[in-house]
């Protein structure tokens, strides 16, 4: 491995100039794809991710449908050009696992029992990746589900926290993820105070986990606000256009 870069400078600032508890700039656009029932595009730092939601719709093959609820299906996929070295377009083991954990992060928010025998499909295409793509995908997917008019208990917002040069930091970028000591993606239904995704690698103490969960929550509350603003800007508009 190349020499580990300094992740925190003497002033306590990170490689991209952020403070430890600072998110990357986030922009969310709603309803960007005409064919999809709901869609969202998120730019978080250098991450650029497109999400489309189709459904509830008839499920094929039929035998996979459930008599008492909708089947939520999720595909997380990275475009070959999304990373420095071309990634094979075939789904990797990582993408298979992430598709599963993203699905399970979104599922608690949905009233699937309202749509028996159907499927709700969430397609996530990572166009550019720079660390924290599963979390940005969840943030955007929740907005796209809401855009599709699917009843939800709450939005789901997500962010990765981690440990860099011994300190707990919010919203790791790729460099910090690669050379940091730990990476902890967290997704929550912020209004209900429930955690729907939690993973970790690297080494952390139980006390650090507690600190990480608190920091994640503060980031998630900021992202939650952005999600709601993005949805409002589509459905409420400025008012002037309607006038």
């Amino acid at each position, binding site marked *: *491995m*190349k020499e580990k870069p300094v992740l925190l400078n003497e002033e306590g600032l990170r490689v991209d100039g952020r403070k430890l508890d600072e998110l990357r700039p986030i922009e969310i656009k709603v309803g960007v794809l005409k064919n999809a029932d709901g869609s969202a595009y998120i730019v978080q730092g250098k991450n650029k991710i497109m999400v489309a939601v189709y459904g509830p719709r008839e499920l094929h093959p039929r035998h996979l449908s459930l008599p008492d609820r909708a089947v939520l299906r999720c595909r997380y996929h990275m475009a070959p050009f999304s990373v420095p070295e071309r990634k094979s377009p075939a789904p990797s*083991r*990582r993408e*298979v*696992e992430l*598709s*599963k*954990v993203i699905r*399970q992060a979104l*599922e*608690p928010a949905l009233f699937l029992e309202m749509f028996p025998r159907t499927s709700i499909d969430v397609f996530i295409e990572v166009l550019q990746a720079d660390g924290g793509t599963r979390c940005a995908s969840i943030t955007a997917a929740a907005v796209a589900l809401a855009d599709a008019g699917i009843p939800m208990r709450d939005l789901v917002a997500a962010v990765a926290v981690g440990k860099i040069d011994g300190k707990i930091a919010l919203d790791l970028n790729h460099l910090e993820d690669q050379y940091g000591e*730990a990476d*902890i993606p967290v997704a929550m*239904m912020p209004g209900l*105070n*429930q*955690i*729907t*995704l*939690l*993973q*970790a*690698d*690297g*080494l*952390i*103490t*139980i006390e650090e*986990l*507690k600190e990480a*969960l*608190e920091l994640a*929550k503060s980031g998630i509350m900021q992202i939650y606000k952005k999600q709601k603003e993005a949805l409002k800007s589509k459905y409420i508009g400025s008012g002037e256009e309607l006038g």
Partner: protein
Amino acid sequence: MAKSEEIIPIIKKKTIEALLEKNTRIDGRKLDEYREISVEFNVIEKAEGSAIVNIGNTMVIAGVKSVLGKPFSDTPDEGVLIVNTELIPLASPTFEPGPPGEDDIEIARVVDRGIRSAKVVDLKKLCIVPGKSVWALYIDIYALNHDGNLMDASGLAAYCALLCTKIPKHSVENETIKILEEKEDLPIQHEAIPVTFAKIGEKIVVDPCYEEELIMDARLTISFNEEGKICAIQKGGRGMFTADEIMYCAELGRKISREISEKIRRMLENAQST
């Protein structure tokens, strides 16, 4: 592996929930009680290391094979570690044949994360010629009988197999690598012990059995090293946790991981002394 539909009668679900209300479980355990663990080391002579782990009626085997290979370009001076899990139809009436599905892959990746993050094996010592030749360790995990908590059984089987793995010694002369007859222990430096919890309604139980897994809302696996530091976490299932519930699992998991570690140490000593 594909999974056919798993069904549990509503009456059984209600029984399990009613018992949990009284803080007891369908198999008579307390909520924070782990099942009996037994480990058989080196069951496969042709593997470099192997172990069968039983947690109650759950049974998993892991085998380690070493081959000479090329290092990854970003870690030219480290050996390679590859974990693979297969939930074969032999282990459960609900497992179907076929290539690894998302459940198999999830288990393999969580086990891999624990072993990698805790640095169980000193991969630097598996380097033979930097950038050219290193030992690649393949850990293959096979479920043999599924009675819940395949995650911990897989993680423990992989860890126990590594503990008793011996790889051939080698010599290097003019860049030619010679593999010798004599074998040496793997450079093991840390522990990675997973502990899995299931949330059923408002109750949290450790080491869920099969029936508990069928009705659980969510699952949480936390792996610990010998210092009680967390080396991997994975939330699973369709449900959710509060931060307090996660911290409860972390504290209890740390305690249980120490007990499991002690049991494994004793079983390994017994195995080596006979």
